[in-house]
């Protein structure tokens, strides 16, 4: 008993006593920096950048469906992207603005994820010494950072492959011509290891999207009994649409449906 009281006294000494009228004084910061400095604010950043990136993956998938209409269709679609708002804006200007915005959103998403992960690890420096028995946390929610990192590494490869063409022609015939979108896709996805990586990354993207798309509502506080039941439906449907569309491309190439 004495030992316990000593132990309580020791813990008590390490911090100020509970006062009843505590008011913490916060550092003066700009509006955005003040919000972003909190964990809740970083979750807003995760959600907003997540929405932007979700918009990108959806329209990227829809645009790529054009490959089923033939080479001329998808190549002209690529040309259209360059000519967005042309002649009002110079060729490629709007596309580069969109790319810049997406890159900024990706960096924000990664930074917020990184700092929240650090915060979470600090919140429990001594882990549970016995195995945890999770009740509702699922594979998707517990692997967000890993599925995210694998998708990010796939993104790097994907850009090197089909945007810069650096790894597009390795071990395959033909040369990479940027405007020849259709031929580039067929040449790249015709290699089965590339197709397998593509499918794996998209399945992980789907898992990431399902938890992420639902989390957006929670993080931004969009909660209303009228639509709460639809949040999981939306997340599942969104993830399914993106994954089914994306995974169909390598399968179509390998099956010879999409060919030069």
């Amino acid at each position, binding site marked *: 008993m004495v*030992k*316990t009281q*000593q*132990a*309580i006294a*020791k*813990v*008590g000494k*390490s911090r100020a006593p*509970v*006062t*009843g*009228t*505590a*008011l*913490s004084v*916060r550092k003066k910061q700009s*509006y955005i920096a*003040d*919000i972003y400095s*909190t*964990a*809740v604010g*970083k*979750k*807003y950043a995760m959600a907003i950048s997540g929405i932007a990136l979700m918009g990108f993956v959806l329209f990227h998938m829809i645009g790529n469906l054009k490959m089923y209409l033939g080479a001329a269709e998808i190549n002209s679609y690529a040309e259209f992207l360059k000519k967005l708002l042309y002649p009002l804006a110079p060729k490629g200007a709007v596309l580069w603005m969109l790319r810049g915005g997406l890159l900024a959103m990706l960096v924000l998403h990664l930074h917020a994820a990184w700092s*929240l992960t650090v*915060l*979470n690890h*600090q*919140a*429990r*420096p*001594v*882990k*549970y*010494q*016995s*195995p*945890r*028995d*999770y*009740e*509702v*946390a*699922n594979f998707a*929610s*517990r692997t*967000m950072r890993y599925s995210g990192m694998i998708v990010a590494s796939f993104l790097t490869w994907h850009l090197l492959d089909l945007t810069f063409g650096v790894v597009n022609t390795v071990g395959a015939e033909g040369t990479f011509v940027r405007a020849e979108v259709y031929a580039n896709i067929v040449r790249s996805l015709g290699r089965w290891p590339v197709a397998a990586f593509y499918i794996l990354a998209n399945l992980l993207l789907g898992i990431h999207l399902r*938890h992420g798309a*639902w*989390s957006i*509502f*929670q*993080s*931004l*506080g*969009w*909660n209303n009994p009228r639509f*709460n039941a639809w949040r999981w439906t939306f997340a599942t449907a969104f993830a399914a649409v993106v994954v089914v569309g994306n995974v169909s491309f390598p399968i179509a190439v390998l099956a010879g449906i999409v060919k030069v």
Partner: protein
Amino acid sequence: MRLINDLKLKVWRQDGPDAAGHFESHTVEKVSDEASFLEMLDQLNERLILENKEAIVFDHDCREGICGTCSLMINGQAHGPQRGSTTCQLHMRTFKSGDEIVIEPWRAKAFPIIKDLMVDRSSFDRIVEAGGFITAPTGGAPDANLILVPKPVADAAMDSAACIGCGACVAACPNGAASLFTGAKISHLNVLPQGQAERYKRVEAMVHAMDDQFGSCTNHGECSSACPKEISLDVIALMNSDFRKSKSKNRKALSRS
């Protein structure tokens, strides 16, 4: 009454906040299936005391599931395998003879271990104290129903007010976040007419106090599942939206002065 025998307990023992802890094995015999989990530990402690050994320290008070004092991570689940109940309301009929039961304290930086299975949860008090007060007329007791509250609002506030501050949400959260606790304390007052005057000041102060000590929410839902009062994740969403509003509303209010 049925007797449960040969319960193999692995209990976390730790002499003090800075001491290194370890698991200690005990076998408990002849436990009534009507005994609560804490009574089973009492039985073990009585034996330890008779054997002139030190009793296992654990938190408990009302033993009727409403004070929020008992804790314990039982077989990797906060408050044990039974949903919607505290450890004191977990009965030994949940277990059978020969079961191995692993008991650990809550683990979080904000909940330092005092001894064995007892942790210091005053971090929660710091969040509550940051919330401050509500302005209320003093003097004689007001008439009942002087302030009208719609039934669904009263129900929502009551659901949040059910939080007993046991800390299971933090213990169960893979990130050690206190979002469910803070969300419950915030929405308890923020949905009621009596709480409107300090609504945005309250959410801001409490979220900052929470941020200083706990992890962040990644929407696993473990907290709500472990919560003995089954508080919904909706309170976290309300906290998130009120915090967002507080940041802009306070600015507007300040710019007018």
